[in-house]
């Protein structure tokens, strides 16, 4: 089974103190943030590599990003992917989901594959749209929010994650595209040694011009958004408990005793 996996590099902000520049256009301290593979995409890479290990075939990674995005491709190669393609072009800056899907489509349309995987969404923009748009452009069958994949003789049986503790079982014809939900597997650990071992694998690079992409379909010009202004959310409503460790714990213990009716 030949598999293509679309991945994205995103900043890690979970414990970061973020600030916004005064124009409201971007994170101010972006250079301080550690870049990492989008969490959903990491699960997608693991899933693709496992399918390859079980059924044979190849895994090809694609990303749109700058030269630093090579890091996540190397990481994916260390996990077991065979090839990697980097679409490196400033022109994608400001793209909406359709712009990104269009860029990926221009590469995918010339590849041979049985299955395309993407993450359900990216952590940064959180569109959750690129995978399905790409499937539609490629005229592939698809399923979003995949948490289980069963390969059958003809096609796939997929469990989709719905709300309220419920899964939906569907049957898909191949070739297909799946958007992968977190928790579908336990992604393998990637060591520095592992990444070093794949340093000689060539990464294919391309850009918008080589792909014959009209510039009015990508970037700010191609985006459906005319203006985006960022701000930090207003401060939370919580009463913040401060003081020494012991004082805070005593206050919390009192609240638990009072509200929980326990002694």
């Amino acid at each position: 089974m030949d598999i293509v996996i679309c991945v994205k590099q995103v900043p890690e902000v979970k414990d970061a103190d973020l600030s916004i520049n005064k124009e409201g256009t971007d994170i101010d301290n972006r250079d301080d943030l550690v870049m990492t593979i989008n969490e959903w995409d990491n699960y997608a890479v693991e899933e693709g590599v496992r399918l390859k290990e079980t059924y044979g075939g190849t895994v090809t990674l694609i990303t749109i990003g700058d030269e630093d995005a090579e890091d996540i491709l190397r990481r994916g190669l260390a996990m077991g992917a065979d090839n990697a393609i980097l679409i490196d072009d400033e022109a994608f800056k400001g793209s909406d989901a359709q712009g990104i899907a269009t860029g990926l489509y221009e590469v995918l349309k010339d590849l041979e594959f049985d299955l395309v995987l993407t993450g359900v969404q990216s952590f940064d923009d959180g569109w959750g749209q690129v995978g399905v748009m790409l499937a539609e452009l490629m005229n592939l069958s698809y399923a979003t929010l995949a948490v289980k994949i069963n390969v059958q003789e003809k096609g796939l049986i997929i469990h989709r994650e719905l709300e309220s503790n419920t899964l939906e079982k569907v049957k898909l014809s191949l070739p297909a595209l799946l958007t992968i939900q977190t928790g579908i597997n336990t992604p393998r650990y990637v060591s520095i040694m592992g990444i070093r071992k794949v340093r000689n694998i060539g990464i294919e690079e391309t850009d918008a011009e080589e792909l014959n992409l009209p510039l009015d379909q990508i970037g700010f010009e191609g985006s459906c958004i005319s203006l985006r202004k960022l701000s930090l959310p207003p401060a939370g409503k919580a009463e913040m408990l401060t003081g020494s460790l012991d004082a805070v714990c005593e206050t919390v213990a009192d609240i638990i005793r009072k509200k929980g009716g326990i002694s």
Partner: protein
Amino acid sequence: MPEIFVVTEHRKGKFRDITFEMLALADSLASANNCSVTAILLTDNASGLSEKLRSACDCILVAEDPAFANYSYDEYLAAFEKIIGQRNPSLILVGNTAMGMDLAPAMSTRFSIPCVSDCVNVEISDDGSLKLKRQIYGGKIDASLIMKPSPRYIVTVRAGVFSADGNIGRNAKIENFSVPAFDNLKRRQFIEYIEEITEDVDITAADILVSVGRGIGKSENIALVQEFADAIGATVSCSRPVADKGWLPKSRQVGTSGKTVKPKIYIALGISGAFQHQAGMKNAGTIIAVNKDPNAPIFNIAHYGIVMDLFQFLPRITEKFKQGA
């Protein structure tokens, strides 16, 4: 008069809450901008469902077909292909749900309609431009958007944001439409729903939940949380990353795709508080959150917040109760 479409969502013959949340949003947009509201109902059996929509919109556009018994994108797209061209809606509201995330981007691409997902606010300005608000970076940044002009837009709406409590007081007429034959579609076939069975503790029955998130770091540390929970007679639950990593069973997961809980006390330890998690616990009586990130979104809904390292907090708070016993 411009028309707002609301794509209704139902499962096993019952509407999902998001349907009425979108109708409430559509009602306020329509009232302020002189639009009409049309609910789209694709179902195998409209009789019970359409009545529930009657007072919430001006028109119910119904297609009844066995193929609509359960959502599947092929059939839904075929239906929209027919009605979008005929009706010319200016705004199409879809839930940012497992159904909407599957459907809306495909509608956007196939019908060349710009789509913005997961919106928490929707406004139409005086000049007619569409203004949207959404959260990015896991809720740590708000983004306000102004859209470029377009004859129509698709907006997917975050669940649980718009209140469906009010009585809308519209009076809908029902219009039926037929859909083309689906013979050559069937690229994806619905098989069944699987409801996950709870084999261990039922977290929805607990009075006090001690809930643990990614901040706990590793599987071995769950024991510290269990010890605290035991000391106060609480049950241990978790956020998505902990279940994803297999540190606790999925049946302990609080949130949109897991369980909705309403304990007297909810103690969130190392949980950042993505909106999917908040949706599952925001109605708890008292919410206490401990997180080392002062900007964690969990502090937006907690009653009490503590910015502290869990591994300092946990032993000391546990000790408070062991001493008392």
